[in-house]
């Protein structure tokens, strides 16, 4: 047994080479865009190089040594992912390109097989486009209707409205576990229980929550969970769909091709066992193994300590941002993660992002792929600072100092 050292943000940060790289004429990089994608630690970078230098081969075919090694590591990553999210059976883990593809897989495969005219799919008004558009597409082909759980001015779901929606013919509820704009952590456990009582299945978008907090799909009892590797230190282009095995067994394939078949004739084909039935074509082998390496980093660290650090830093960020005159914080949920969105009276988010970038600070400006949410707030765009375990108070201090300069600049302008 190795001992897990108490979480130390500075020591953790030192493992991310890019964070030591100067930007914009030698300014230290202040990276506050981790809700978009996290940076990668040396463990993952080394793993990618190791993969391509020692075992690159296609998986599940060929009997040579490299194919054997690559397949073993690929399947081992599946076991790691299953353990990481508390899934008892690794067959419930389907590798995808990311959260978006995972949700599209469920919408196209499960959705087309189960949704009929008159059925309702319940979403929330705080979803990312990736958990709205796939359902609009499948609604258009099946005749199902979409309904949305509204959110309160604080940025919390209106659970009374949810209960009213569940009186109707709801087949599926799909919602984010943690809003990428408001930071809100939704009470998915009670929503799942209520949906199950009404006979609906539940998909949880874990893109923001899985990187941040321990997830136990067995305890949560979600039917589907989608998340992305690149928001949790792994390479881009690898994501996960967790699904209860019985659901996967009954679902038709999503994409057809190699890997996913059992027998192919010129007339028809039969499918491979799950999860391979849903992994057509050569998968993102390096990315999958890199996701396994990222999970190793999580498992070797003091995760409670890291989470407490991010929570304390989020509270500190909110407190300090309030020093900026005219700043309006968007999202004041009691349970929240490290995505902090705001507007500043008289300064457009684009201009804010541009100004702070001149100080080496990376934030996001725009609609954060959540146009309906932004519209409900009465805005066309917001600025978002989003945190990860490697951020420190110095990052927040740099942002606030830069924002104060932006504000002064625009205030004194003619």
């Amino acid at each position: 047994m190795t001992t897990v050292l108490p979480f130390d943000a500075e020591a953790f940060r030192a493992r991310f080479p890019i964070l030591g790289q100067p930007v914009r004429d030698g300014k230290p990089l202040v990276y506050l865009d981790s809700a978009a994608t996290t940076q990668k630690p040396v463990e993952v970078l080394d793993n990618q190089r190791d993969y391509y230098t020692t075992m690159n081969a296609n998986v599940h075919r060929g009997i040579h040594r490299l194919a054997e090694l690559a397949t073993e590591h690929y399947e081992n990553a599946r076991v790691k992912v299953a353990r990481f999210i508390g899934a008892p059976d690794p067959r419930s883990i389907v590798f995808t390109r990311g959260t978006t593809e995972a949700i599209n897989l469920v919408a196209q495969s499960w959705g087309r097989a189960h949704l009929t005219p008159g059925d309702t799919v319940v979403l929330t008004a705080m979803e990312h486009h990736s958990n709205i558009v796939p359902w609009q597409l499948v609604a258009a082909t099946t005749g199902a209707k979409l309904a949305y759980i509204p959110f309160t001015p604080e940025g919390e779901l209106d659970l009374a409205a949810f209960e009213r929606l569940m009186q109707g013919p709801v087949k599926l509820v799909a919602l984010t576990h943690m809003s990428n704009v408001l930071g809100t952590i939704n009470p998915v456990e009670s929503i799942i229980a209520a949906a199950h009582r009404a006979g609906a299945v539940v998909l949880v978008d874990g893109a923001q929550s899985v990187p941040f907090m321990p997830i136990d799909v067995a305890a949560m009892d979600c039917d589907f969970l989608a998340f992305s590797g690149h928001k949790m230190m792994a390479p881009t282009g690898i994501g996960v769909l967790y699904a209860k095995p019985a659901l996967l067994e009954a679902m038709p394939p999503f994409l057809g091709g190699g890997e996913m078949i059992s027998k192919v004739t010129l007339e028809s084909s039969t499918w491979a066992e799950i999860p391979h039935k849903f992994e057509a074509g050569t998968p993102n082998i390096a990315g999958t193994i890199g996701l396994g390496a990222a999970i190793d980093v999580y498992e070797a660290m003091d995760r409670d300590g890291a989470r407490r650090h991010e929570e304390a830093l989020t509270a500190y960020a909110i407190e300090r941002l309030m020093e900026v005159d005219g700043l309006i914080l968007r999202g004041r949920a009691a349970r929240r993660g490290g995505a902090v969105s705001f507007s500043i009276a008289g300064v457009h988010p684009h201009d804010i992002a541009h100004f702070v970038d001149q100080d080496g600070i990376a934030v996001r400006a725009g609609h954060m792929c959540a146009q309906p949410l932004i519209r409900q707030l009465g805005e066309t765009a917001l600025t978002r600072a989003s945190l990860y375990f490697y951020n420190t108070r110095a990052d927040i201090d740099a942002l606030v100092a830069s924002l104060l300069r932006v504000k002064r600049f625009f205030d004194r302008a003619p």
Partner: protein
Amino acid sequence: MHLDEIYQEIILDHYKHPRHFGKIPEGQAMVDEENPTCGDHIKLNAAVADGTLRDVVIECAGCAICTASSSMMAEKLVGRPVSEVRDLIARFNAMMRGGPELSDDELGDLTALKGVRKYPLRIKCCTMAWHGLDAALNQLKA
């Protein structure tokens, strides 16, 4: 900070006091464009008579660059022959995409926007109104 590179006084002036701006009622805009990557939103109407661009009305929910570029464009082009307007639109947009540079004499206040070329992600902010006016002129021709 190298703010003066693109956030010059003239740009801030047009941002805070945009010219040829007004409210365009729902459904009455000839051009209604949104930049899907950032949410900048422009509505635009143009009026042409006797081969001359007589008026432009812009409603813009955008950043300083988008707003100032729209305002400066309208100020520069209203009252000019349509052929000249179209020519300048084409050459301005080409310049922003890395094409031949227009002289400061010809650009006047618009010279302040040249700095935006250094920031590829902001060029769209700068050219949105120009594309919008071009589209409006196409409609008037049709």
